[in-house]
């Protein structure tokens, strides 16, 4: 049996694995009956062509968009995630050089 090679799952991703009945004409991967999307394509190829008829195509599209967004070196999410608790602890209010520092805002970082 050739298993279906479409990626499925919400949190833990894996291959679908059901018996394949067709191949995607674009990428050639094996597809089960459930995963044949618009035009006989696999969901991912369909999503790449902006065809979201198949529910799995919409999921593939969102995954792709997410990877695209977060692949940039510094998105908000990506950058601040790089600062861990070790980095952050020295900036707690009690750790300032001056205990009075917060009384009118430590916003004076960049004072012309």
């Amino acid at each position, binding site marked *: 049996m050739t298993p279906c090679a479409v990626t499925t799952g919400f949190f833990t991703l894996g291959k679908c694995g059901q018996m394949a009945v067709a191949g995607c004409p674009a990428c050639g991967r094996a597809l089960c009956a459930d995963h044949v999307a618009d035009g006989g394509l696999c969901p991912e190829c369909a999503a790449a062509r902006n065809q979201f008829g198949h529910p799995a195509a919409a999921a593939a599209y969102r995954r792709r968009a997410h990877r695209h967004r977060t692949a940039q*070196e*510094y*998105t*908000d999410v990506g*950058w*601040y995630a*790089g*600062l861990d608790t*070790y*980095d*952050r*602890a*020295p*900036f*707690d*209010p009690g*750790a*300032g*050089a*001056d205990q*009075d*520092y*917060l*009384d*009118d*805002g*430590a*916003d*004076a*970082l*960049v*004072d*012309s």
Partner: protein
Amino acid sequence: MSEGHRAAYVAFDRFPSAKGSAVHIRHMAAELFDRYGGGLLCVLGGGGLPAYQREGGVEIVRFGAVVPNLLDRAEAFSAWVADRLAPHRDTLRLCHVRDPWGALPALSAGGRLVYEANGLPSIELPYAWPLAAPSTLAKIRDLEGECLRRAAAVVVPSQVIEAAVTSRGAAPERVHLVPNGADPVRPGLPRPPAAPGRYLIYVGALQPWQGVDVLLRAFARLADLTDLSLVVCSSVSPSRARPLRRLAERLGVEDRVTWQHTLPHDEVAAWLTHAELSVAPLTASPRNLDQGCSPIKVWESMAAGTAVVASDLPVIREVLGEHGRLVPPDRPAELARAIRVLLEYPEAARDLGRRARQHVEEGFTWKHARARLAAVYDRVEGH
């Protein structure tokens, strides 16, 4: 929201406030908003400032969340700015920012980015947060570099910081020098009622790198000039001045030092005008040497026609040139001697003040600064 804004100015600073940075924001943002017929101003709130204001075409939104940890606050600010900018994505043409916390969301907000680098957190943060690890500062330095490299233009107030931003990867042809300025003080300002007879003046914040302690020590050496007082016009609250007050007591000069806190900007001008000398005792710290600045206190003293005695640092040389008296930094004795000499020769001091004022009027008023900034915007739009 009626229609999208075409311009946004983002600053991780409280605005308005008594600090030099607020004066700077006022003039730079005014230029941006005049050009685009209004825009969005995202700044820090607190201190009783309203969270939302609409002034003609300008919409002012203030970040009011209470987040104690500074980096957490910066992160929350970035996310908040991203949300504020999102509705304007299709119309936004220019985003003007002052720090990496604002630059991050602005980079993906559509529109071109103008990064105004007055200071670099990776240099400045350790002064306020001495426990910050070098690896943390390296991460912040990376972030600065990333934002500076991706900005369409970087605006710097001095050549020292120009060198600092190019060393972080900003393309030299995209870095533009726009020195700060000051508006000439109109003559005939009345003497402040609280002013002592003859006084030296210090204007500004009280961080250690400002060198106010050096000034106090120098002032203690002028004890024989019994009619002379020192006025410290602090832009921060009295509680921050506590360590310096204790130092003044220890030096035995507390009776001759007058403290003024968070005075409105226009009152400071009157204090400056009637002072014998204005002192800018900046220390020779990495903050001043590597990062530089364009100290508004020096510009405003010059504009008031008051002679300036300042530390001999590259940044001060740039601003003051030969229109003031330079002394070696961190040397109370040298500072005291320079002050004494200028007090002995009031005619020379007046002449110095006059020339400084003329220098400012001829090329360094806020009008000139705005014109230079407008030229940067022209270039950014032209590309």
